[in-house]
C-alpha cells in the first residue's frame, strides 16, 4: 500500500524488486513442485510403490532422472531468489512494514472494520508462507545430504517424517495460492493483483 495522505484513492504499486521476486518465486515453485512430484512417483511417500501416483500432466522431467535434474537445478533458482529477497526486505526494513505484525493480530481480534480485518488476514497469510518455504529448503537439504548434514536430518526424526514434512509443502503452497489470490482480490481488487504482476 502506498501512502494515501494526499490522494483519496491511491493506486497500489509494488517495487520492481518485489515483482521480480514474486515472478521468480512462482516460476521456480512450479518447477520445484512438478519435478518434485515426478520424484515422489518413483516411490510415493504414502504407500511406497503400491501407493497412489500423481498423473502425468502434473509431472516434469519425463522420468525419475529427468525430474531430479530439474529439481536440483531449480532449487538454486528457488533458494537464491528467496535469499536475495530476504536480504532486500532486511536492508530496506520492509520486514517491519510489509508483513503481519501485532497490529494485524489485534485487528483480527477486536476490529469492527471488515476491511481492516481482511487486510490483516491478507498480511498474515502471505507472511505465514515464508516459514513454510524455508522449511521446504531445510527438509529438502536434510534429504539431499543426510550423511554430511546428519545434524539437520536428525532434527526431523525418522526418514518417513522427513519425507512427509518436505512433501507437505506441495498442498500447503497450493492452498496458499488460492487463499492469497482470494484475499488479494478482496483487499485491493484486480488493481492490487495487477500491481504485483505488471
Amino acid at each position, binding site marked *: 500500500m502506498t501512502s494515501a495522505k494526499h490522494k483519496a484513492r491511491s493506486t497500489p504499486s509494488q*517495487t*520492481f524488486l518485489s515483482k521480480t521476486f514474486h515472478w521468480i518465486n512462482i516460476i521456480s515453485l512450479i518447477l520445484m513442485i512438478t519435478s518434485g512430484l515426478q520424484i*515422489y512417483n518413483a516411490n510415493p511417500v504414502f504407500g511406497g510403490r503400491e501407493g497412489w501416483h500423481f498423473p502425468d500432466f502434473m509431472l*516434469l522431467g519425463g522420468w525419475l*532422472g*529427468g525430474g531430479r*535434474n*530439474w529439481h536440483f537445478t531449480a532449487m538454486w533458482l528457488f533458494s537464491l531468489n528467496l535469499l536475495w529477497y530476504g536480504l532486500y526486505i532486511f536492508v530496506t526494513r520492509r520486514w517491519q512494514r510489509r508483513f503481519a505484525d501485532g497490529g494485524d493480530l489485534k485487528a483480527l481480534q477486536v476490529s469492527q472494520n471488515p476491511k481492516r480485518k481482511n487486510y490483516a488476514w491478507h498480511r498474515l497469510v502471505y507472511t505465514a508462507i515464508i516459514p513454510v518455504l524455508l522449511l521446504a529448503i531445510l527438509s529438502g537439504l536434510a534429504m539431499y545430504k543426510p550423511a554430511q548434514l*546428519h545434524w539437520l536430518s536428525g532434527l526431523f526424526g525418522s526418514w518417513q517424517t522427513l519425507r512427509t514434512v518436505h512433501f507437505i509443502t506441495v498442498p500447503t503452497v497450493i492452498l496458499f495460492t488460492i487463499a492469497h489470490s482470494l484475499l488479494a482480490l478482496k483487499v485491493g481488487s484486480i488493481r492490487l493483483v495487477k500491481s504485483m504482476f*505488471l
Partner: protein
Amino acid sequence: MSLILPKRTLSRRQLLQLSGLSGVGFLLGGCGTNLFSDNLRQISEPLNQSLEALLLSQKPVPEFPVSAIEVDKLLINTFDFTPQIDPAQFRLKIDGEVSNPMQLSMGDIQKLPLASMVIRHVCVEGWAAIVQWGGVRLRDLVALVQPKSNVRYVYFKSADGYYESWDLASAVHPQTLMAYQKNGQPLSADNGAPMRLASPIKLGYKQSKWVTQITFVSNLLPLKGYWEDQGYEWFAGL
C-alpha cells in the same frame, strides 16, 4: 540506504511471455523431456557435484544403534538379473594403475579386518532403510594394491554387467566397505552376494552388488556408470 529501483511496468506482451514461461513446466511434463533435462544437467551437475565434493569429509558419518535396523525397508533393485555366484569359485580382481594388482578369494578377504556399521541406505527413488553392513574397508584393499599417485577414480564391475565409477576420496572413506554381511547374516544373492559396495555417503545406485572387479584409473572413461549414462548424477554424494 534504499535498494528500490525506478518504477517499471511490464507491457501486456511481456506479461503474456512471462505467463507462457510459467506454463512451460506443465507442457514439458508430458512430452519427451529427456533431451531438455540433460541440457539442464550439464548446467547444474558440475555445480552440485563441486558442492558435494566440498561437503565430503573423511570423518565417519554418525551411525545408528543396532536396535534401529529396519529389516523390511531395504528394497531389492536390479537393472537386469540376479547372478548366482559360487563363493568357492569367486575371485575379486583388483587392477588398473596399481603397483600390486591381485586376485582375492573370499577366504583371503575374510582374513582382512572385519568392519561393521549401522547406517542409512538411501535410494535415488526416495526411500531409505537403516541397515547393518559388515565387510572389509575398501581403503584396506587400496593399501594392499597401492594405486599409483595419479589415480583419481575407481571403477567397479559387477557379475550382472552393472558398472560404476567413484571418486577416490569417497572410495577410501572409512565407511566405504566391500560388504559380505547384512544385518549380521551372510549377504544373500538378492543383496549382492558374495560381495557388494556399501557406504553411507553415496546413493544406492553407486553401491554396486556382485562386484567382481575393482579398477583404479587416473581419468574417467566415457562410460561412467549404468544409471549415470542414462542421466543420473555421477557424484551422487549424500
